[in-house]
């Protein structure tokens, strides 16, 4: 029997990410809906909080991250719904592929999706709330990437759990929201600093904090995810 060499964790991750990307591309209507959902959320904040432009401007960073957070709940749920259809996750598992590669592919894929969403939302935020980007776009980009990484790793673990439980639509936010408070806080704070200037040079420490959270969340996810999806 011709036995091809088993592929490693990294290559498996890449194959799975490529597959997910292809599915996203072929169902881009779903993706568009997600973008408009997030934009509508941003818009609703300005309605809910009234026309006080100063208030909106001051809190723009927080609104941006709330919009990303709400969208992430949808995208995380979707990424395991795709695998649940026809038990595809079993097919991947039995191929066999390393469960850790499944975690990495889903978490990285979600990060990429959320970063892309953030990139689309930032101009909308600038227009809606009248903010100026005082520090560079580079800092804003770094904030976005670090924040989305910190949402995606625990989100992937919890989404895999919730997708198999009853009441999964309620369960995912219930599990995820308290958990990501620190990331959300740090990301929103860093964004605010980027938008309004950083006279006391605090941005670096917020980046450090976010990186630390990421290290812990990604480490835990990498270690624990196999337990979640194997019977």
């Amino acid at each position: 029997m011709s036995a091809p060499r088993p592929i490693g964790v990294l290559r498996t991750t890449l194959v799975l990410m490529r597959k997910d990307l292809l599915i996203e591309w072929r169902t881009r209507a779903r993706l568009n809906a997600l973008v408009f959902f997030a934009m509508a959320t941003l818009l609703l904040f300005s309605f809910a909080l009234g026309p006080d432009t100063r208030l909106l401007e001051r809190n723009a960073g927080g609104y941006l991250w709330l919009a990303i957070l709400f969208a992430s709940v949808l995208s995380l749920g979707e990424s395991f719904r795709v695998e649940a259809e026809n038990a595809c996750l079993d097919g991947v598992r039995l191929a066999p592929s390393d469960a850790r590669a499944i975690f990495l592919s889903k978490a990285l894929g979600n990060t990429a999706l959320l970063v892309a969403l953030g990139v689309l939302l930032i101009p909308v935020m600038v227009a809606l709330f009248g903010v100026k980007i005082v520090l560079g776009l580079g800092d804003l980009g770094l904030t976005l990437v670090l924040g989305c990484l910190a949402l995606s790793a625990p989100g992937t673990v919890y989404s895999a759990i919730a997708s198999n439980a009853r009441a999964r639509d309620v369960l995912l936010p219930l599990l995820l929201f308290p958990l990501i408070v620190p990331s959300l806080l740090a990301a929103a704070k860093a964004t605010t600093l980027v938008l309004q200037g950083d006279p006391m040079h605090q941005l670096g420490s917020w980046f450090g904090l976010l990186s630390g959270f990421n290290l812990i969340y990604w480490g835990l996810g990498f270690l624990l995810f196999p337990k979640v999806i194997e019977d």
Partner: protein
Amino acid sequence: MGKLLHRVLPGVAVVLLVAGAYLGLFWAPPDREMGDVQRIMYVHVPAVWMALLALTLNFCCSVTYLFKPSWKTDAMAEASAEVGLLFGTVGVLLGSIWGRPTWGVYWTWDPRITTAAIMLVAYVGYLALRRFVEDPEKRAVWSAVVGIIAAVDVPIVWFSVRWWRSLHQVQSSPKTVDPLMVLPLRVSAFAFLALMIVFLARRYLIALAERNAEVALPEALPSDDPATRGGSGASKVVA
């Protein structure tokens, strides 16, 4: 064992609670600044301590379960999360009542309070997960994973909130505890400890009974402990 748990320990808890309440309310002097309000400390602080103790136990059970699955560990994890949540809620409520006359508000975004609140929500999620998963093995594994992540998150929340708050000035009053306040606090703490052990043990026995009922069939089917993977069958079914 059973007598100690069902008779002696609850009795000890009641006696200590009464003694702690008496010492706290009548024996200890009122606080120099806060007056009688401060007496709530004798119940607030022990409640929070017990919550932390129970949730630490939950973390230990979660880690243990992943390495060595057993229904006992899972039952203890469930019991400790529930009891921890109970004491934590009591502690936060008492703290909030204490806060109203002291700070003028029920709630403030103090790192400790914020962390406590987030922690409580996280363990509500943990218990919800346990209700929503029917398969006992899956429930045990998943809740262990969630328990570990939630526990690791507690210090992270603490740090992030502290940094967040440090940008605003928060007045912090170093608490100098009068030696006369130590005794009632200590008695109260032991009372809560006894109470917690009673709750924990009872809840554990219920959880274990539930697990055993879930995993057993009327007919003598294999040992249901997931740890015992090795089959030791007496009667074999012949093909």
